[in-house]
């Protein structure tokens, strides 16, 4: 007895599974590239740290800020220009990046992250309209 029929079916299933990313991609339609981020420069042309750093490590920075504020009650942070800014997610980040949907969310949706911070923290926009 040979089981070549069953193994052949197995091979087909295996190929479909492994090439999943490739055909998933063609099913999902034309890949449009990285989403465009809308950056509002009206409050300053620079972020609190270099763009490269922000791009890779803004979550680490936020974590450090959170720990400083919540554990050490230290609310101010000196940026490289010497300016002292408030360490705050809603008040600092979101004052410049008020367009959360076109900035944070766009990149997060693309990267597959859903920060749970907004369970408690409020967006600047909602703060203003309230």
């Amino acid at each position, binding site marked *: 007895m*040979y089981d070549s029929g069953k*193994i052949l079916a197995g091979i087909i299933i*295996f190929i479909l599974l*492994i090439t999943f990313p*490739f055909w998933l991609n063609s099913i999902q339609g034309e*890949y449009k590239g990285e989403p465009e981020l809308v950056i509002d420069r009206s409050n300053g042309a620079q972020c609190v740290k270099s763009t490269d750093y922000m791009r890779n490590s803004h979550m680490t920075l936020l974590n450090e800020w959170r720990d400083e504020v919540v554990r050490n009650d230290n609310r101010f942070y000196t940026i490289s220009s010497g300016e002292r800014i408030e360490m705050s997610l809603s008040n600092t980040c979101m004052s410049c990046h008020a367009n959360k949907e076109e900035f944070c969310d766009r990149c997060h*949706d693309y990267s*597959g992250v859903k920060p*749970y911070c907004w369970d408690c923290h409020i967006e600047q926009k909602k703060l203003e309209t309230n």
Partner: protein
Amino acid sequence: MNILISAAALLILILLVIVGIEAAGLEYFFGVFIPYMAVVIFLSGIIFKLIGWARSPVPFRIPTIAGQQKSLGWIKSSKLDSPATILGVVGRMVLEVLLFRSLFRNTKYETKPGQKLVYGSAKFLWIAALIFHWSFLIIILRHLRYISEPIPSLVPLLQNLDGFFQVGVPELFITNILIVVSLAFLFMRRTADPKNRYLSLTADYFPLLLILAIAITGIMMRYFTKVDIAGIKTFAMGLVSFKPVVPESINVIFYIHLFLVSSLLVYFSFSKLLHMVGVFLSPTRNLSNNNRSVRHVNPWDKPVRIHTYEEYEDEFRDKMKAAGLPLEKE
């Protein structure tokens, strides 16, 4: 010695990338050519092996059972451990593939001073293997976020479960810890015990170290050295949509991670890692124990040339008659 060879091989792979990226600037080679090649070798290697297996005859049922085989109606049979039906076999296979039941039966034996040889149950191999394989699967599925747009809802679900404890930012994934701990245990299991060390080959250590290195580089990128995740997704999307773009300003750690994954894919079908597909073809697991109720014909039986007595008589009738021998037919 075997450990040293595997560690050296791993080190050479890593150095190769560092030199290739930092000194020679071979981003296109390591970022595009190698991954494509690895996927092709992985796929074709496994298909080649599978075709070989498809052409081999299925052996006679091996009733290595841990339960009563089906016989008379009033004798209770074990439907899962000694299945007589396809359904039972499917059940046994599913449990084998998902829960590694064979490993659960793993035993250890040792002689303590002044004692006879003692056999005992050894569940740690099973537990560590289960943790490792499931963590690895979840981690691989989480990586779907890099190669799909929009991202299937399975990924956020897994991320939420995996980051359940919400430790730190970026969220600590439980599987990241589990995979490193279980791999470390599986490595220690081979090295700590002289008997196991004696039995372990380079081919046992190398995959463990390779996967450990892949996990560690991934963890480094996520929590410590940091990479531009959106940029890497753009790069990965380029690969899967066959419009490769070479990422700029991406940390060499990412290239090491990618190259080690490619090495794993290439190494896969030539090594014991092939048990990923081989497990489905375990003859002691995937054949029902119905030796007594179904006739199994040996597939490689050649038709035997037989010469019956009638034919013999036909052939030698004249001579037999002449010699006066008795004949069945005149």
